[in-house]
């Protein structure tokens, strides 16, 4: 048992060295049962979470939010306001926890860093020519280094989907390895952009590829293409991190992003995490929501639970 486990570990670390070995491994992964995955995700979405369990889920979800703004129109003032909201999402209730992180473009990192310093809220920056990833490698690495130097402690990189879909897996692998290296101590989240990968089999392969290359997190989407995070896609990724830990002993986090707007959606994801990979992942260090409007809905539901009265969207800040 020990011998096989050790050999499996060493085998996996060798994979990145050759295109053929990588391809053989990724294409040797079992195929995803599409109907089964969708049915399982839909079934887990029907769980009823109420009262104290709901209160706990809402607070956990708030702690897991990566409060995100990735607009061309972002200004230093806007991201500072967002960072202030991240520290104290509900100014009316000091018992409300702070969010997991703030996620911005690299140019906005210094402005956010000022506000977040010493608060425990992480500062994530997208990098590597987000959202397309279509830039020369040196530029992507420079982008990453600049974000880390400016104060980001988490980097959200995009994989090179063009290379992935063309089957040039080692190119994708080597880019992730190089970006991880450029990150230094910062955590690396690898965005697979599942909406562009077309099949669940590809999602599973991309997840393994990102984990083999050293990603600390795998993330579904940029939020910039029409199809963002869905429950079945996240299920496939959760299964991948579970199997990866069983094979290598290393735990990798998961971050669904885009399209998660309501507390109900968020709780569905939490149920799925608990049922698929277990409570080890029910922690902001291992599971995050990439979202902006989700936070306000969580706060609304939280206010309802604590005061018994339904507030409207007018009672919370817009960004």
């Amino acid at each position, binding site marked *: 048992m020990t011998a096989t486990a050790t050999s499996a570990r060493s085998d996996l670390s060798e994979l990145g060295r050759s295109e053929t070995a990588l391809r053989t491994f990724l294409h040797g992964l079992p195929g995803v049962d599409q109907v089964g995955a969708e049915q399982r995700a839909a079934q887990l979405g029907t769980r009823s979470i109420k009262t104290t369990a709901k209160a706990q889920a809402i607070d956990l979800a708030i702690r897991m939010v990566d409060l995100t703004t990735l607009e061309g129109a972002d200004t230093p003032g806007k991201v500072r306001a967002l960072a202030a909201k991240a520290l104290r999402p509900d100014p009316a209730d000091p018992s409300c926890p702070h969010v997991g992180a703030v996620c911005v473009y690299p140019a906005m990192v210094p402005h956010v860093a000022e506000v977040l310093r010493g608060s425990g809220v992480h500062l994530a920056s997208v990098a590597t020519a987000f959202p397309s990833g279509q830039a020369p490698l040196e530029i992507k690495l420079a982008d990453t280094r600049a974000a880390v130097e400016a104060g980001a402690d988490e980097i959200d990189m995009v994989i090179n989907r063009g290379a992935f879909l063309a089957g040039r897996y080692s190119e994708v692998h080597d880019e992730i390895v190089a970006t991880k290296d450029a990150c230094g101590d910062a955590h690396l989240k690898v965005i697979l952009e599942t909406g562009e990968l077309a099949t669940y089999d590809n999602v599973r392969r991309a997840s393994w590829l990102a984990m083999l290359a050293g990603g600390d997190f795998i993330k579904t989407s940029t939020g910039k293409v029409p199809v963002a995070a869905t429950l079945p896609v996240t299920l496939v990724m959760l299964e991948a991190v579970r199997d990866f830990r069983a094979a290598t002993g290393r735990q990798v986090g998961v971050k669904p992003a885009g399209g998660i707007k309501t507390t109900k959606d968020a709780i569905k994801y939490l149920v799925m995490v608990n049922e698929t990979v277990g409570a080890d992942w029910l922690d902001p260090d291992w599971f995050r929501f990439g979202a902006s409007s989700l936070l306000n809905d969580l706060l609304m539901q939280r206010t309802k639970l604590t005061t*018994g*009265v*339904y*507030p*409207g*969207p*007018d*009672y919370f800040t817009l960004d």
Partner: protein
Amino acid sequence: MSERVAVRKTYKLFIGGKFPRSESGRSYLVQDTNVSLASRKDARDAVVAARAAVPGWAGATAYNRGQILYRVAEMLEGRREQFVALGVPADEVDAAIDRWVWYAGWSDKLPQVYGGANPVAGPYFNLSAPEPTGVVAVVAPQSPALLGLVSVVAPAIVTGNTVVAAASPSAPLAAVTLAEVLATSDLPGGVVNILTGRITETVPTLANHLDVNAIDLTGVTDADLATDLEVGAAQNLKRVLRPAPADHDWFADPGITRMTALLETKTVWHPKGT
């Protein structure tokens, strides 16, 4: 020729332009028919739908809103016999149709009657214009079921508000059928939402909801409940219309107070030079 299978009708809620069953799955037997029994969650869903409809409806031109209310009257006229068959007296149906026409005419006249230029001691144009309050919760009178509902909903929506109405619990069939009329009258989804079931279940949720801007307690008959609802409404300073007296004559000329009670006045100062 074989006998036809009976096509039995399900009377459902009207939320966001759709006819969903109650989220709770419950129904109650009334007027020999099963009717959806709305839950607190249905009431909250209705508020969300009504809020979403506010920008489009309040932003429509008064002329357009008047056309749509007139269209409701047209559609109701076409279904006159259906309402009579449900037990609504013919003169009540006619009065309800006339009431839609009456309020339709007010859509572009009310701002002239209720707003206008104010004389001020300075070189300014000073103009007041009535604006809709927003989402209005309405408790329709127990009877008359159709004319009562029309008499409380039409004045709220003609000025650009959106409505969540609790229909008469004892005679909801006319209300659900009216919803079918509204759904085919070019009225945008969510402008009128109709809940059937117990007043005591849905209306307190609406009174306590902070995203509701006004509440019309016309149909509340229990004085203690009315007081509780007013206390709930005070939380976010909702506009409140008190319960109607038991002997209120719904066939009489309604006047404009129901419309003006659900308006905010916007006043604009504009310098005119020298």
